[in-house]
């Protein structure tokens, strides 16, 4: 789990840099879009074991 946390924190650092560069440039509007999609991503992660969600996940990705 500690390894997972390290991986997640490393990924968050990269994501933070990406968002900072978007924020400063002409594509700042991508930031609200990412903010909107973040909870959706969380739901997909939490739903991954749910057989109800599986067909939709397959179609989307």
């Amino acid at each position, binding site marked *: *789990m*500690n390894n*997972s*946390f390290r991986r997640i924190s490393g990924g968050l650092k990269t994501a933070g840099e990406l968002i900072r560069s978007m*924020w*400063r440039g002409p594509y*700042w509007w991508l*930031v*609200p*879009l990412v*903010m*909107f*999609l*973040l*909870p*959706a991503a*969380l*739901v997909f992660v*939490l*739903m991954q*074991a*749910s*057989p*109800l*969600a599986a067909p939709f996940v397959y179609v989307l990705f």
Partner: protein
Amino acid sequence: MRPERRGESGAPGDWSRGQRRALISAAALALGLVGAELVVRVLDLTPPPLPTVEGRVFTQSGDARLRFENLPGSMQRITYRSSVGARAHVVEAHVNSRGLRGPEVELAKPPGGLRIACLGDSHTFGYGVAEGESWPDVLRQSLQADLGSQAIEVLNFGVNAFDTEQEVAQLELRVLDYSPDLVLIGFYLNDTALRGVAPDEQALPGFWVRLLDRRRGGWIAWLRKRSMLAELAADECYRRIVFDYYARSRSAGFAPDYPGWIRVQAALRRAQDLLGRRGVPVGLVLIPFLIRDEGELGSHAAFEVVQEFCASARLPCLDLEAEFEGLDVDSLRLHPQDYHATAQAHRIIGVRVADWLAERGWTGR
């Protein structure tokens, strides 16, 4: 960083471009959270409530080696619900007057019959499954179907929370009186975590476990009560942290120099010698830890060590991991936060054990 520019009017008090962007981003996040909350509610994805347990099926033992044992004539009722307010699924476990799970049995073996004694912990006792659903029960049903009119008795000596040393002590003190034709010892991942031996623990991420525990009060309880998304996220994180820790720490208990594993090997050899002198075959049934990580069950590495020991000690051993290949093991546990097996998993185990006994010629066929 570029200096922030004022809004179009440039008047003091106008929001800067950065502030406007921040506001829009925050609104988008709030909108996303509301949408996610709606999805969770519409699809009813919240985890089921913890089951309620009534009654106690164990008592302190008069024997120091056993420490505790099943309470004769006791009953335990466990109530499961798929969601709050949903119809309950009630499971009862009965312990007979001799302290065995299941119906009454005579001490004397019926003439011409086959009597099998199953030793183990809660995974053999059948914690959370009804009468007739534990793997020893399924084993009896399968053998009865195969052997027809021959009387088959499978005695369930399982005691919740027993370890291997206690099981071997139980064999010496109680089980041999029943003159079994065959003894099966159910073995689980936590069986080297013997009482009195300091476990080789790797640090539990205590902060997260305390924060995400369902019994915790305060602001997180407030949030979990109002948001099903928060409840789902907290529960899922808690489950992953705890099961990951459990698999890691218990697997570490199979290191060659770990005192618990050394004592378990000694206990198994003692059982083998004791039964060998009486001409009673003994087999080890490796009951898998039903959490899959990177394609393997959580007990995979530990059970490889156990199989090596069994091969060197010539102790027959059945690893059941292959029976769960390709199956959704999450759905084969009683509850997302419980590692005990469902009736369906017990059926898989019981049927495979029956086949194994037949393959080894232990059933007389």
